[in-house]
């Protein structure tokens, strides 16, 4: 009897998710033993038609990382959904849009103008832009269509599970694969659809090693503006930390080195819009003796969009900036 088929695909992503999978070290070989890897662009042939050739649902498990940024990504999202029994949004980009989702402050035209014309190192007097179809002397070349709006996987296709994180932490990934391998071998039930796997159900504060006390801040600080203190909660020191609005699972690594959480594990259960939630939370802990002063302090928040929506703009309620 042939092994169940496994696929991993990256869309608009950095590759960190693949590296993260490597972090499971020798266990990767166990994946090899238990699955028949039919499709892993970094591991196997990328030709679409090999996937097209598969029967619907022939792939048992597909880990899809990266956001949906262009027509090629979207096509693959639909195709892999069709061919997979279990489609997992793997990593922050697939789950939330991730950092590529920040491109939703702009649109394709604006980005091209900047990258191919305005950038100081670019010399492009004839205003040459990459074309989706282009005739070279020898024939025709094509490029995928770049969308204006970056989307998370579940904004394009039906998703079974989510594994958040930028990237997901090695042990977490293994825990998930182990569960699935276990179910394959010994039977049993997979978690209910829509479950966030490889992460906790509380906020990052729960695993952050720092001591939490009542939070009343009188202004916003940068990490280097406060003396090094391994114990004190960063938020209490005025450093904007997304911990309270971020799902646990990473182990609180960033705060352990004195750097604030930026929310890569996405919102905890019950939070619909991570960035908006952070705004409500942060504003609430500003302490002053009058609402006017509170408003003054609140107005000094440096970059609400880029901080609160660092990884979640595409999945936010508004999804993108107006252009």
């Amino acid at each position, binding site marked *: 009897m042939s092994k169940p088929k496994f696929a991993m695909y990256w869309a608009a992503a950095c590759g960190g998710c693949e590296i993260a999978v490597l972090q499971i070290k020798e266990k990767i070989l166990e994946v090899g033993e238990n699955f028949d890897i039919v499709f892993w662009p970094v591991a196997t042939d990328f030709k*679409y038609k090999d996937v097209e050739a598969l029967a619907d649902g022939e792939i048992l498990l597909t880990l899809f990382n990266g956001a949906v940024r262009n027509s090629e990504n979207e*096509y693959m999202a639909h195709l892999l959904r069709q061919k997979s029994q279990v489609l997992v949004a793997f990593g922050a980009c697939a789950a939330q849009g991730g950092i590529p989702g920040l491109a939703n*402050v702009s649109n394709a035209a604006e980005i091209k103008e900047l990258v191919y014309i305005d950038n100081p190192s670019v010399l492009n007097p004839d205003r040459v832009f990459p074309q989706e179809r282009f005739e070279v002397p020898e024939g025709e070349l*094509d490029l995928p269509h770049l969308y204006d709006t970056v989307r998370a996987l579940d904004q394009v296709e039906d998703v079974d599970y989510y594994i958040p994180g930028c990237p997901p932490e090695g042990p977490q990934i293994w825990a998930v694969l182990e569960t699935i391998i276990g179910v394959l071998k010994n039977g049993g039930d997979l978690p209910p659809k829509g479950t966030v796997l490889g992460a906790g159900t509380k906020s990052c504060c729960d695993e952050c090693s720092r001591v939490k006390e009542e939070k009343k801040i009188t202004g916003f600080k940068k990490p280097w503006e406060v003396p090094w203190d391994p114990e004190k909660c960063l938020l209490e020191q005025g450093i904007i930390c997304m911990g309270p609005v971020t799902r646990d699972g990473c182990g609180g690594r960033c705060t352990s080195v004195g750097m604030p959480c930026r929310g890569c594990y996405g919102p905890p259960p019950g939070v619909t*819009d991570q960035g908006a939630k952070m705004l409500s939370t942060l504003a609430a802990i500003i302490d002053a003796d009058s609402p*006017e002063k509170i408003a003054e302090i*609140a107005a000094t928040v440096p970059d*609400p969009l880029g901080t609160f929506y660092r990884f979640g703009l595409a999945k936010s*309620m508004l999804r993108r900036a107006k252009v």
Partner: protein
Amino acid sequence: MSANEFEPRIIGFLCRWCSYNGADLAGTSRMKYPPNLIPIKTNCSGRVEATHVMKAFADGADGVLISGCHPGDCHYINGNWRTAGRYPMLKKLLEQLNIEPGRLRLEWVSAAEGDKWARVVTEFVEEIRELGPLDWKDEVHAEYTDHDAGELKEAVTA
């Protein structure tokens, strides 16, 4: 309302103690103001989250009004101080999202200020009329062509 003039859709979040009663007073005093704002009652303006404001815009509101007790008069002592903190952050965020900050407004309206309520709503409706429709539903869904695999295959694997 004439069929082709833009009629703003506005959501108003009113605290139960001051603003909602202020709006009631405008009613009992038979003051007249435009019908574009639909009130939503919360116990305290401090309960109103950025998420609620975003939700309103995402679902098609052209403007959002948050109204609570005057500072010091809050029936939860300082619940509205939280609102006061959220407001400037929200404005800044909207600006970054390229949405006119004027589409969001915060007002302190007491239970005794029926006239202020009527004035605020009238002004706000006019301001939003000036700004024109936001049509966020269309904005975000503009590109949502929901291609099926077939259509895209053409685009990708020529």
